[in-house]
């Protein structure tokens, strides 16, 4: 049982995601990885489906983990985790190991969770394996050069959704809502939460709740990407905060069948405050920004926050 971390000062000093990676300056996914590993502790196996947190971390002979790590393929984080979990259960039952049942954590990007990886993810949760599946969302296929994924926001520029005279807003589709997909329709689900690297204490405690849940737990972590979203590398935490304060990302958990908002912005800021720092939205016209605002309002409403139409600057 992992104890609740009462304050950021009481967070463990030990690190299990350590130097040795080659992520970009200000990398959001790397920041959240460090927090997840810190919260999980030493009795942990990390699985890395293909994505930034695989590619940028696996230079030969130079991995950044102080715990065991295995590559899963981008399709199948859920399946590889299922195999490891079943193996440990069987080996413990057959007295073939004296190891304690480990924390089995899949660290998948939005492609490896919401897109090509969703089949194996959903199946693992349906079967009820005792794993924590982290979907760190940097809202694009970033390690292949910023192509659109199903969680890329409406209006964002990517190399697959460039803005042009015929398609002025860039990406035309609204993003998939992965945590809602996971929350509804997986009867064995034991715990689900969203988190942001900009709220580290909340994030670490959600990791621990997920690992204590004794069954499939899903954690959806917002992880801003300076390169893919075109913002300065020292603004990652600030951008993460703005996403929450403008309602573009909501922090909640689903525990024992009850939704609970874990952070409610005191005063909602308009979405324009969030996008103005990001080059990927720089081509948007007022009508596009209004559409994005409507999207945020709708998502907020779904978690019980009535948006007050804040005046644009």
């Amino acid at each position, binding site marked *: 049982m992992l104890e609740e971390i009462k304050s950021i000062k009481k967070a463990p000093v030990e690190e299990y995601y350590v130097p040795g990676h080659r992520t970009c300056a200000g990398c959001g996914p790397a920041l959240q990885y460090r927090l997840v590993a810190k919260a999980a502790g*030493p*009795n*942990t*196996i990390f*699985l890395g489906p293909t994505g930034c947190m695989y*590619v940028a971390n*696996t*230079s*030969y*002979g130079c*991995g950044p*983990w*102080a*715990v*065991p*790590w*295995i*590559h*899963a*393929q981008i*399709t*199948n984080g*859920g*399946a*590889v*985790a*299922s*195999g*490891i979990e*079943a*193996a*440990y*259960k*069987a*080996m413990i*039952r*057959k007295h*073939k190991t004296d*190891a*304690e049942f*480990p924390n089995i954590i899949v660290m998948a990007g939005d492609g490896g969770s919401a897109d090509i990886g969703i*089949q*194996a993810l*959903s*199946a693992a949760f*349906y*079967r009820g394996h005792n794993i924590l599946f982290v979907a760190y969302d940097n809202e694009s296929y970033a390690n292949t050069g910023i192509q659109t994924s199903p969680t890329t926001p409406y209006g964002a520029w990517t190399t697959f959704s460039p803005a042009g005279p015929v398609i002025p807003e860039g990406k035309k589709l609204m993003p998939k809502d992965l945590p809602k997909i996971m929350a509804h329709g997986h009867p064995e689900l034991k715990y689900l939460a969203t988190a942001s690297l900009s709220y580290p204490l909340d994030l670490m405690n959600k990791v621990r709740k997920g690992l204590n849940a004794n069954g499939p737990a899903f954690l959806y972590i917002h992880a801003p990407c300076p390169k893919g979203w075109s913002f300065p590398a020292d603004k990652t935490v600030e951008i993460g905060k703005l996403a929450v304060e403008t309602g573009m990302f909501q922090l909640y958990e689903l525990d024992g069948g009850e939704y609970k908002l874990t952070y409610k912005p005191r005063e909602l800021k308009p979405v324009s405050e969030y996008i103005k720092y990001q080059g990927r939205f720089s081509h948007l016209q007022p009508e596009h920004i209004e559409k994005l605002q409507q999207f945020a309002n709708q998502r907020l409403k779904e978690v019980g926050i009535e948006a007050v139409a804040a005046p644009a600057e």
Partner: protein
Amino acid sequence: MAERKFLNGNYALAAAVKLAAPEVIAAYPITPQSSIVEKLAEFVSNGELEADFIKVESEHSALAACYGAASTGCRVFTATSSQGLAYMAEMLPYVSGNRFPVVMAVANRGLAAPWTIWGDHQDAVSMRDHGWIQLHVENAQEALDTCLQAYKLAEHPGVLTPVMVCLDGFVLSHTEELVEVPTAEEVKGFLPPYEPMHAVDMNNPTTFCIGAGPDVFTEYKYSQQLGMEAALELIPEIAAEFAEKFGRNHGGLIESYSCEDAEYILVSMGSVTGTARVVADQLRSEGVKAGILKLRAFRPFPIQAVSQVIKRAKGIGVLDRDYSYGNEGALATEVKAALYGSDVRPSVTNFIAGLGGRDILPSDIREMFAVLERSVSQPGSVKPVNFVGLRWQR
């Protein structure tokens, strides 16, 4: 005491898997494989087999779950056929490259399109280059025995290479034969518990399948070839040890029949070998010096063993239940390559038969030998590749 039972090939394989006692089984249903895993599900359900059976949502995940389970150092099993094997294709080199000794049964079936559920070797043969050992069996007893040998082979520290145990769809998978099932005690003496060289360990954290640059990638691939070369030595040794313990020998890398003085030899793989032997006997009684060479190992390919047996004959036929489009049957290419380094090189004629489950009749095999005789008596009169019994041709 070993028990004699009527079992089809799939149930014989399931009986072998029960004896090998894997910790994890992960599989997805596909014809004609399904009944292997259905039987294993029964064993798990009634307590005869202490294993976790993961009912995955796809073949890709079946092999992915085996890959994960194998990383912890336990024994695993999966099975598939045809499109299912094709769907696993991405995972095949991940398993072999990580040197995980997974054993997989492949109930061989043709590949669509047009869609077919019936047997041929296209599925396994088209996965030739993914670093898996492929052993093809001739009957249900051989399926059982080869599965036990496969675990011993795959888990050998010098091999650490996954093995496909291939049995012909329906002809073997669904046809009952009298099969001897050894006891768990007997098997214990032959197949010891798996001792992994590398496994996930919290006390000694390591990474599995990290990226490798051009400076080291080749060495990883080279080491896989060394594993295959070790398998080439060990397959006959393990078969001999098995024969000593259980009294059955289905051949090591190959099994030759009446080949010593044969003028005409047909190379075959899988269940058709039995029919071919009967025809060879008939031809012998008629004065034709016919022989049959069964390929048991398709990978590693036994170049030396094959060329030693066939090089003194006059005409060699190669029966392929597969096709490498744009060239010829895959076995034919392999057999010709085996002869390249030989001091004498008989002519090689390729026969394509038994695709998509079409029966290969004794009369078809007689005709193949007739063609072989013509290929020698009238050089140039025979086509290098012959589709047997074509009902339509240009």
